[in-house]
């Protein structure tokens, strides 16, 4: 699992590369728990190379969901593979989180 950050104005783009399992979700949790992240108004998660997400990985996003919502930070997933999207959908997360097909769409939604 490789997690990289890219900052564009008030937007942070987190790129997930590989499998988000129990061990790598700890790193992601650290990343999202960083107080610096609350300075951004948008968090875009690039899931293009995310092959697999475990329940622990989902748990990390779920645990931060409420916090971001309260701070009015938008959390947007884009470029998600069908397999991973299916996991989000089964759990019902697609109705709670914003999942869009590509980067442009993500930027448009984020700017709304």
């Amino acid at each position, binding site marked *: 699992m490789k997690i990289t950050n890219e900052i564009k104005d008030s937007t942070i783009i987190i790129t997930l590369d590989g499998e988000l399992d*129990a061990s790598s979700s700890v790193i992601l949790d650290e990343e999202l728990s960083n107080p610096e992240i609350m300075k951004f108004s948008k968090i875009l998660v690039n899931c293009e190379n995310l092959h697999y997400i475990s*329940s*622990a990985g989902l748990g990390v996003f779920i645990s931060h969901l409420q916090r971001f919502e309260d701070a009015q930070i938008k959390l947007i997933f884009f470029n998600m593979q069908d397999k991973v999207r299916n996991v989000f959908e*089964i*759990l*019902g*997360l697609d*109705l*709670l989180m914003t999942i869009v097909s590509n980067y442009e769409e993500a930027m448009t939604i984020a700017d709304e």
Partner: protein
Amino acid sequence: MLTKINTTYLLITTAVISWALLLANLLLTAESLQQQELSEPMLPYIHNILLVIFIVSVFLAQRNSVLNLRKTDFLGYLWHFFLKAAIGAYIALAIYIAYVLSTDFIQITSPVLLHLVYHTFFGLLVVFLGKGFYIWRQLLLYHKNKFLQIAWDWFELLLFGTLLLTLLNFDYTSYIFLPLLALLAFYILFLCTNLKWVAYLNFNKKSRALVLLGAILLSCYIFLWFFYEFKSNTQLATDYTHVGFLLLAMLFVGLYGLAAFLVSLFSLPTSSVFEQKSEDLLNFQRLSQSIQQGQSEQQVYDTVFDSTVKASAASAGWLELDKGTEKQISHMLNITKEQIERIRHLLLAFKYDTDHINNNLDRNPGFKELELPWQSLVILPIKSLKHQFGVLYLLKDIENGFDRETVNVLQTFTNQTTLTIENLRLVAESLQNERYKEELKIASTVQENLIPKTFPSDSWFEISTHAIAAKEVGGDFYDFLQLSESRIAIIIGDVSGKGITAAFHMAQMKGIFHGLMQQDMAPSEFMRQANSALSRCLERTSFITSSLYIIDYRMKGFVFARAGHCHTLYYNAMMQDTFYFQTDGLGLGIIRDQSYKNHIREMFYDYNPSDVMVIYTDGIVEARAENSNEEYGEERLRYMLEQCYHLEAEDIKFAIINDLQTFTGPNTIYDDQTLLVIKFKADQQTV
């Protein structure tokens, strides 16, 4: 068959008989000597044969008895030699004194008596030589090598060969044999250099060995003196000093005894060094064996403190153990707590930490001020790369008390201690792990009991279940509750994560299921209340997916709600269609407030006989083969049901599990797997 003991008895009997015959022959010769003035003994060849028989039988008897001897130490051999043979010399001395007194004062001169005395001496001498010869053999061959063994065997052979000279009545002093005998004497000298056993005696034993060896050497001298004393006696019919064998044997016994005596004497001052070394070795051994003997760390520290104090002959010292951040003094010798404190303060002030040697404390103004009675100090840490266990301080009342050699030995001790302590801790740790494993096993059994093994068998449906946990305990669960005569609630769930945490949440969920469903509520209401209950106890990152089904066979229908759980696979027998129920529903514990009720839906469905419902957890559809990214998937599961819906519930389950295991290969369970197959039946009988 001759046993060893029998052989010995036979040899002794032969020896006694031949000795008696020799005596008889001697007396006979003496008799004729007086009458006929003959200088040769009568029947010289018979005399020689008897002589050889006597010597050989005594030596062989001694050989047997000594080889059977099992002494644990060298002193035992020396004692045996002294008590069983060398004492003969003193008996002979007593007899001689008695003889001289009787001849001198009572004026009895009898050739018979003279010969009897002389011959007795001879017998005692041969026994002495035989015993000595083989006792020395045992000692000489201690730590032998092949060369030494061969050298000895040849020596023994050559020595017995010289008996031939006697047998054939050759004069060994003739110029032909003299060089040969001289060579043999050199051979003896060479053999006498093999004295390895002396090194193994400690100071005490060496002193005792010296006394015994002295007594033995004295015996040698007494015997020699006798025979040369008697040699001049013209009345004697024979002279045993002419027997080359005896001379050589005497040379060997005497020389080896002398060599042993001298070596013991001169190694006496250095023996304490060897003693210390061998004690060090023993202590090392004790340290390294303390694990097998189940000793505690305390005992290991006891050993190392005692051993190092002894090894360095330290006059004072103490051992500090690191207990967390504190240092605790566990051992003290000839030093007070106050002195320790003062030395410690000084060391801190000088920033001497560990690994420090000061062989001249008086030159250090700080130490001089303390006015301690010691001159040398060595500080040795007991530590591994990662961990410090303690520090050893040793003090000596002389300058340069700790030389390089001593410090090396001390370091070896501390290193060995480190190893031992680390190993002890490893052993303890593995025991602890073993206990955890045992407890996990118990947890596993407890959890297994939480999952029902048998469903109520009924005529209107069949149910078959399959559950494997990836680890000892898992997060998957299913359960049922008979709500009324015609209604049954079935729940399946999956707690996020694995292991103990998941297992606890799973047990919680089971409790919630039984608690809430007593009140018989709709599945969506159940999910809402379960979500509310779980919100208070689930960890931040944990959630549970679940599906609850209430089947009413009187109404031939079921109602269910899906809380983020895998979609239910269904085969409709009427329409001959296999599909997934596509319903919405959010997992439990994701939204932890009242708004959850907006995220859960309920669905009613009327079933037909022969319909099949497949309920499972994500461990099934997300199963992967080793090193592969491809998941088993919903499509494949649906395809399997299409192929085998006509089978019994049990067989459908086996078909799916077999296909799954073929797909993943053996031993590749990454996640808990649970599968329930329910087949509705046509024939309904109300109870």
